[in-house]
Each structure stands twice: as structure tokens, then as C-alpha cells.
């Protein structure tokens, strides 16, 4: 369960968030949909505890991110935007490093890493160094290391950027599996089709605030548009918006 209320954040003169509020329930996939620069990444980074909000409240599994960041970090699995692997380590070593840092050791660590290698179909390149991996291979390893400690909350920032069809399919399968296992999955995207296909609930973010929250049907009904894309354009403030 992720709860966000009235979150604000400034970077110098730029107001990145001007009051973001939404909730993401357990056992559901929630999508943050919005144009580039709307504040999606900033919101997710606050939830991951790597940025501190200026105001408002953010809780993960009932734990306040500011009051107890280390406890929050223990229960989340994160795939940041443009995140990368250690090029000198093999795929397996990259995953094992995160597993060890999350407190796994010995045979439990080995088993968890093996499980991830199988699940994300990393086997063919598991023992190659990450230098020179394709974007699809990189994302699969990055997702594996985010999931290796079996977190109950999953935060993914634009995970499907630049992925080919096969990698996107694996990613979607894994996200759905986690949802079905009762995880709270929150992910951001600026691709509407992506969100429409995958998400149970959608929060539309524009200019640092959430303009609408609900299921795809809710959003179509509220805006009076049959097409989700038209509804989206209405909600983010029209075609001419430039960020």
C-alpha cells in the first residue's frame, strides 16, 4: 500500500511537485501517467527515499518515508529511470550484490539469485559481464536485482523505455505475477497504451499535480471521452503543452 498526500518538492526555482496525492493498493498495478517533466520521477524518487519532499506525506506499507527511510528501503524493490548495471560484474554478480546488501547470505542467496535468473530468462548471459548487454538484457538484470529480496512493494520508473517486444513481454509477465501475489506495484510511463494494457488504476500527473485518479473506465466517464488518449490530452492541459 502506497499513500501519497499533498507532496511538494522544489529544485531551486523550479517547482517539480505542487501537491501530488494518490494511493496505490496492494494486489493492484497502479500507473502514473503523464508527459515528460510532469513530476512522475520526482514522486517515485521520494517514495524510494532518495529524495526528500519539502512538504506533504508519503507512506509505503504504512511507514512514513521520511521518518523511517531504512525500513521503507527494506520492503521496496526499485527500478529507477535509466538505471544501469556494474559493467565489470557479470549478470549473476550484479544480482548477488544486491541480494547480499539486502541481507541474504549463503545458500538462501544462491537460491534467490538462481530463481531470478530462471524467471527473467537471464540464463544464456548470466555469467557474462554486463559491459555490452543490450537494453533488454540490462533491464531484465536490473529487474532481477530489484526483486531478488522478494519485496512487497514494487516501484518502476519508465521500465519499458527502449525495450523490444520480447523484453517487454517478460517484464509485463513478471509485473502481473507480482500483482497476483499481492504486491503493490506502482509504475510510471508516458506511453498511454502501456498504461492502458497493464494497469488496474491510473493516476494522471500533469505540471506537478495529480489531475485525475481511477480506473480507465472512471477516467473515460469523467472526461466524457470514449478514447483514453483524448481523455489524457484533456487532463494534461491540451496538445500545446511543452515541458
Amino acid at each position, binding site marked *: 500500500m502506497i499513500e501519497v498526500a499533498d507532496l511538494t518538492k522544489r529544485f531551486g526555482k523550479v517547482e517539480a511537485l505542487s501537491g501530488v496525492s494518490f494511493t496505490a493498493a496492494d494486489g493492484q498495478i497502479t500507473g502514473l501517467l503523464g508527459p515528460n517533466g510532469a513530476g512522475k520521477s520526482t514522486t517515485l*524518487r521520494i517514495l524510494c527515499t532518495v529524495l526528500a519532499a519539502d512538504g506533504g506525506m508519503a507512506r509505503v506499507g504504512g511507514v512514513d518515508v521520511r521518518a523511517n527511510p531504512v525500513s521503507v528501503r527494506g520492503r521496496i524493490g526499485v527500478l529507477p529511470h535509466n538505471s*544501469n548495471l*556494474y559493467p565489470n560484474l557479470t549478470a549473476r*554478480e550484479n544480482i548477488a550484490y*544486491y541480494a547480499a546488501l539486502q*541481507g541474504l547470505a549463503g545458500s538462501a542467496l544462491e537460491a534467490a539469485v538462481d530463481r531470478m535468473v530462471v524467471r527473467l530468462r537471464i540464463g544464456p548471459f548470466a555469467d557474462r559481464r554486463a559491459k555490452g548487454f543490450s537494453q533488454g538484457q540490462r533491464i531484465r538484470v536490473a529487474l532481477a536485482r530489484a526483486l531478488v529480496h522478494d519485496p512487497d512493494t514494487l516501484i518502476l520508473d519508465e521500465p519499458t523505455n527502449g525495450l523490444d517486444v520480447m523484453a517487454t513481454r517478460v517484464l509485463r509477465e513478471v509485473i502481473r505475477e507480482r500483482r497476483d501475489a499481492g504486491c503493490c506495484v506502482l509504475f510510471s510511463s508516458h506511453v498511454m497504451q502501456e498504461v492502458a494494457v497493464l494497469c488496474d488504476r491510473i493516476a494522471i500527473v500533469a505540471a506537478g499535480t495529480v489531475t485525475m485518479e481511477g480506473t480507465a473506465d472512471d477516467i473515460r466517464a469523467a472526461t466524457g471521452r470514449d478514447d483514453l488518449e483524448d481523455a489524457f490530452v484533456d487532463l494534461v492541459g491540451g496538445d500545446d503543452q511543452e515541458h
Partner: protein
Amino acid sequence: MAGLGVVYRKEFVDSLRERRAMLSALVFGPLLGPVLFAVLTSYAVSLQIDEALQPVEVPVIAGRSAQNLVTHLYRHQIDVDHDRFDDMEALREAVRQGDADVGLVVAEDFSEALGNGAPARLWLIADTANNSARPSVARLRRALDDYGHAIGVHRLALRGIDPSLAQPIEVLTDDVSTPSGRAILLLGMMTYFLLFSTLLGGTQVAIDTTAGERERGSLEPLLTLAVPRTVLVWGKLGVTFAFMALSLAVCISSFAVAVRFLPLAEIGMTANLTPRVCAGIYVVMLPFAALGAGIMTLVASYTKSFREAQTYTGIAMVAPPLPILLVILNPMQSSALSMLVPSLAQHLLVTDLVKGEGLDPGLVLLSATATIAVGLACALATVRRYGSERVLI
């Protein structure tokens, strides 16, 4: 603190596989330093030997009228060239241009004045601003003084006067420096190379583990893990320290080998880099690796990219050895106060060791404490930096 070992092992393996890090730890600093040192020293030594043995050629005008003088100069390894210049102005110009180190002009009435017992004039033409000509000028001057002195003694003896009456004082110089003490002039350079290669050996690692990690996009996911930032920073610092310590060890060893091939004995010096002295140097210098790891990691953690980090660590690398230059210009002895200044402390202690003088354990402890304290302050500042969101944005 199990996480500390995990971070340390990962960063160590990562750096071992990074060719640039390995090259700078094991090759660039540790080996190029001593090689450069050996070349410079051999050159300096060979120059010094040459100066004493090689004849100097001096253009002389009107020298044929002073055959006794020319013979005297010849005995002092000074070859006279009668034919190069006829004209004093041309000789002056040649010395001014550096074409000749020194020139000598014999006055027309030289022989006559000498015969009459009047002062016989010689013009010594030299450019005192030309450093490379200085040894030749000094040798000619000394030879001329000897000649004048010999004639003076002869004249007094002819008149039945004891020549020692004309020499009221005699100054005897007693050089008390030990051979290895004299070697300090050359080996002083060594501490500079040691400090420099210590820093160089770990700087690449300091950059890779901080700015490099950030630029590659590996830092943000790392910061979302349930590991205290202190653990991350100490793991990174530990590996940088290890590389600097390794680099220092390689550098000392290569110095110990290099000095065996230097002709130090030929100019009356010995370099006592025995295994025991080398071990002492290592112990004395090791705290500087802790300081270096702290400084370089801190500087690199404030930069956003690899290239930016290289610029700033490059600047930071110049600063620590600066106190050594101060001592070279204004020599000082080890004292409690000087032990508080990192790099200066190590330089003075290593100098004592190489001179063959004993070390005061109190001073060694003081220098280690002061140097490590500065390194620790840098480490804490880095931990603070990693606790702030600014390390990412």
C-alpha cells in the same frame, strides 16, 4: 556490519577488473616515478663527475705572450684556444650569446708588468647569469688565483721572506656529512614521488566508486537498498585505501631496486634502502594513504561525472605534496609541530630513516594520528554527502 564486507568485496573485484585502475595503481605512479628519478639522478651524477674530469676549453686572446700562464692552465685541465678570437669585442659577444662559457684576455703589457713586479692584468670574461657556465668560470678563476699565488710565493722567497707571513690565516674545511646524508640531496625527491604515486594509485578507484557509479546510473538503485550510507562509503573508502597502500608498496620496492643501479658511490654517496629501511618507510607513509583515500573520495563525491572528477582530483593531487617543496626551499628538522602537517611529517620521517638516523616513536605516532585524523574528517564529510539527496541531483 556484514554489509561493509559485501561492499568492500564488490568494489575490490570491480576495480581489479578495471584496467585503468590497475594501471594507475601498479604501473604509472609506482614504476614511472622511480624510472624518472633514476634517469634524472644518473644524469645529475654523470654531470658532476664530468665536470671534475673533463678538460675545459677557454678561448684566449694574446695568450702567446704569456706561455708560462698557458702551461699552468694546461696542467689544471684547461685547454687554451688561441685562434678562435682575435678581437675582445667578438669574444664578449660570444660569451654573451652562450657560445663560449668563459673567455680570457691577456693585456698587451702582461709580460712586461710581470717582469717589473707591477700588477699584470688579465680580463676574465664571463656571464654570471648563465648557470651552466658557472663551473667553467669557477675553474678558470681558481687556476688563475693559484698562478698568482704561486708567483707571489716565489717573489717573497727570492727576497728572503717567509711566504707564510703573507698568509695570516688558513681555513680548513671538515665535511662531517655521512655518505648517506649527502644522498639526501637526491633522495629528497623520492618522498615526493612516493606521496604522488600513493595518491595516483587510488584516485582512479575513488572516481570509479563515486562519480563513475553515479554517471553510469548505478548509484540511484544502490541508494534504494536497506544499507546504511555509512556502510557504502566505508566500503568504497576501504578499497581506495587498499589500492593506495598497494601502490605505495610497489613504489617503495621499485625505488629500492632503482637505487642499486645508480652510480651514487662514484660521487661519495650511499643509499641505504635496505629491506628494513623500506619497511620503516612503508609504516611511516601508510597513514598518508588513509588521508589520500579520504580526500580523493570526498572530492570525487562532489562531482557529477568521470571527467569532472578527473579535473578536480587532478587539482587535489597537487596540494598534498606542497609542504615538501617548502622544506626543500627552507630545510627543517623533525619536530612535534611539523608532525601535525600531513605529507611534511612523512617527508621528514622518511628523510631521517634514509639518513640512517633513528626514529622517535612518539613523533611517528603523532604524525600517524594527525594524518589519519584529517583523513577521517574527509571520510565523515563523504558520509554526510551520501546522506544528502545532493549526491544524486
